[in-house]
C-alpha cells in the first residue's frame, strides 16, 4: 500500500495495464483507471472482430461495385447488381432456395412432436435429449457425406431397395431427387436441436395452467391444442425464422459435399453460387454483389424477426 500513491497516477496517465497490480487511492482515480483498464481489456477482441468481420463486409460492399480479379479494381457502380438481376442462373438458384424451404415445415413439425413427447418426461428423457442433440455436434461434411453415401449407387438405401428386387436409383443425377435427399439430410440434422428449443419453451409454461385444465377435464389433445401450442407460439416463430435464415445462408456445406451444385445448377443455392462465382469466374465483383444481396435479404428477415419478437413480448 505504501508505494501506491506514487505509481498509481503514473500508470493511469500512461494507460499501461502493468500498473494494474497496484491498488488505486482516490475515488476519481479509481474510476478513470478502471475505464482505461476496461477499454484495454476489450480492445484485442474488438480490434480482431472489427478487422476480420466488420471490415470484410465493408470490403465486400466495395468489391461489389467494381469489376475485379482481386488485383486491379475498376469502379463500375451498379453493373454487377444489374447483371445479377438479369442473370437466369441467379433466378434458377433463387428458386432452388425456395424449394429448400420445404424443409422448414417438415423439420418444425417433427421437432414439435418430439418436444411434446419429451415434455411428458418419460423414463430416460434426459438421455433422449442427448441423442437428439447428437447430429448438432457433427460437421456438415460428415452429415452430408453420410447421406450421399447412404443414397449413393452402392449405398445403404439402394442396397435395401435391392432386397425388394428394385434396381438401384441414381438419386443425384436428377435435380428433384437430389434436392429431396438434401432436405432429408437437413431434417435429420436439424430436428433434434429444434425440439430442444421448443422443449425449453414448453418448460417455461406455468404448470398451474396445465393443472387447471386437467381439473376442468381437458384431455391430452385438448391441452396440446388450446394450451401448449398457443403458449409456445413465440418460440415457434423464432424456430421458423432461424430455419428460413439457415436455408438461405448455411446450405453451402451440404451442397459442397453432396452434389457440388449439380446436376447443372439444379441444386445450387445462393450461398453456393457466391462460392462458385468467387473461385471459378474472372469477376469477383459479381460474387461479392450476390453476397451483399444475400446479406441484405438476411438482414431484413432478422429485422422482421426482431419486430415480431418485440410485439410478442408485450402480450
Amino acid at each position, binding site marked *: 500500500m505504501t508505494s501506491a500513491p506514487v505509481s498509481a497516477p503514473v500508470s493511469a496517465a500512461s494507460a499501461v495495464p502493468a500498473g*494494474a*497490480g497496484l*491498488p488505486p487511492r482516490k475515488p476519481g482515480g479509481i474510476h478513470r483507471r*478502471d*475505464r482505461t483498464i*476496461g*477499454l484495454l481489456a*476489450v480492445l*484485442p477482441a*474488438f480490434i*480482431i472482430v472489427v478487422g*476480420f468481420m*466488420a*471490415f*470484410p*463486409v465493408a*470490403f*465486400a460492399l466495395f468489391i461489389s461495385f467494381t469489376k475485379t480479379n*482481386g488485383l486491379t479494381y475498376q469502379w463500375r457502380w451498379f453493373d454487377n447488381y444489374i447483371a445479377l438481376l438479369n442473370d437466369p442462373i441467379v433466378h434458377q438458384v433463387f428458386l432452388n432456395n425456395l424449394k429448400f424451404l420445404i424443409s422448414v415445415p417438415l423439420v418444425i413439425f*417433427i421437432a414439435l412432436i418430439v418436444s411434446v*413427447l419429451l*415434455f*411428458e*418426461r418419460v423414463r430416460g428423457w434426459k438421455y433422449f*435429449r*442427448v441423442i*437428439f*442433440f447428437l*447430429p448438432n*455436434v*457433427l*460437421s456438415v*461434411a*460428415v452429415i452430408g*457425406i*453420410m447421406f450421399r*453415401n447412404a443414397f*449413393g449407387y*452402392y449405398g*445403404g438405401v439402394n442396397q*435395401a431397395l435391392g432386397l425388394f428386387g428394385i434396381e438401384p436409383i441414381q438419386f443425384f443425377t436428377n435435380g428433384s431427387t437430389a434436392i429431396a435427399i438434401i432436405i432429408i439430410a437437413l431434417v435429420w440434422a436439424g430436428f*433434434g436441436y429444434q425440439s*430442444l*428449443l421448443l422443449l*425449453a419453451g414448453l*418448460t417455461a409454461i406455468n404448470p398451474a395452467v396445465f393443472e387447471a385444465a386437467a381439473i376442468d377435464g381437458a384431455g*391430452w389433445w385438448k391441452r396440446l391444442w388450446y394450451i401448449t401450442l398457443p403458449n409456445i407460439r413465440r418460440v415457434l416463430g423464432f424456430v421458423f425464422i432461424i430455419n428460413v435464415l439457415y436455408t438461405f445462408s448455411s446450405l*453451402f456445406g451440404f451442397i*459442397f*459435399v453432396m452434389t457440388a451444385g449439380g446436376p447443372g445448377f439444379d441444386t445450387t443455392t*445462393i*450461398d453456393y453460387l*457466391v*462460392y462458385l462465382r*468467387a473461385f471459378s469466374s474472372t469477376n*469477383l465483383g459479381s*460474387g461479392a454483389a450476390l*453476397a451483399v444481396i*444475400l446479406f441484405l435479404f438476411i*438482414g431484413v428477415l432478422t429485422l422482421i424477426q426482431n419486430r415480431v419478437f418485440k410485439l410478442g413480448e408485450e402480450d
Partner: protein
Amino acid sequence: MAEEETVVSKRISSNRAQWPIFTVLVLVAATIVYPLYFVVITSLRPNADYLQNPFGLPGEWTWDNYVRLADSYGIGQAFLNSLFVSTVSVAFVLLFASLAGYALAKLPVPGTKFITATFVSVMLIPGPVLIIPIYLMLARLELVGSYTGLIVVYVASGLPFATFFLTLSFRGIPDEVIEAARIDGAGFFRIMWSIVTPMGSSGLATLAVLQFLGVWNELIFAFILIPEQSMRLLTPQLASIGERFLTDQPLVSAGLFITASVPLILLAFASKYIMQGLQVGVSR
C-alpha cells in the same frame, strides 16, 4: 434446478400411459443412432464383404480401411492439423473473450453500448458474405496457405458470441468478491486469474467445448484458405476422400467416423456443458 425437479415429479405422477410415448421416442432416436451405427460397422469391413451383405454384421472384421486412410491419404496428419488449429483457436478465443467479457460485465468501459452493438450485429453476418473479402485480405497479407490466417478467421468469427456469452456468465460473479480482492490489493490480472477464471469456470468450459466443435467441424474456410494438400484439415480431406471413392463405402465410412469421433467423445463426456450452452442459445 429444484423447480425443474418438482415439475418432473408432478408430470410423472400424473400417471399417463407412458409406453406409447417411450416407444415413439425410441423409434425417433433410432433414426439418429442407426445411420451412425451403420457407418461404424461398415468402416470395419472390407468392401467386398459390404457389397455382399451390407446390413448384417461383417463376415470379416478389419482395421484395413483406417490403415489405408492413414497410409495413403494422410488422414492422420489431417487429424493432427485439425487438432492443432482447433486448440489454438479456442485458446485465443477464450483469452480475448474472457478479458473483454470481464471488462464488459464488471468495469465501466467507455462506449460499452457501441462495443456490444458491434459484437451483436457482427453475429448476424452470414458466412458466405465473408468468403471473397477474407480471401482477398489474407492473400494480400500473404496468409493464405498458412494456419495463422485460418486461426485469425476462426478467432474473429468465434469472438462475438464468446464475448457475449462470457459477459453474461461473468455478471453472475458477486461484486463483493471482486471488491474484497481489490481491497486486498489484487490488480486486474490477479482478479482475472484467481477470481474470475475459477468462478466462471463452468461458463468457460461450456464455451471451450462449443468453440472447439465449431472450429473442428468448419468446412468452407478450411477448404479455401489451406490449398496445400499436406496441410489440409480433416473436414476438407474427408470431403475430397468422399468425392474420390464413391464406390468404396467402407473406406469413406472410416473417414466419416474419424472426423465424427472427436465431437462424439466431447458429447459423451461434456454433454452437461453442451446442454448449458444450449440454454444460452435459447435466451439469445
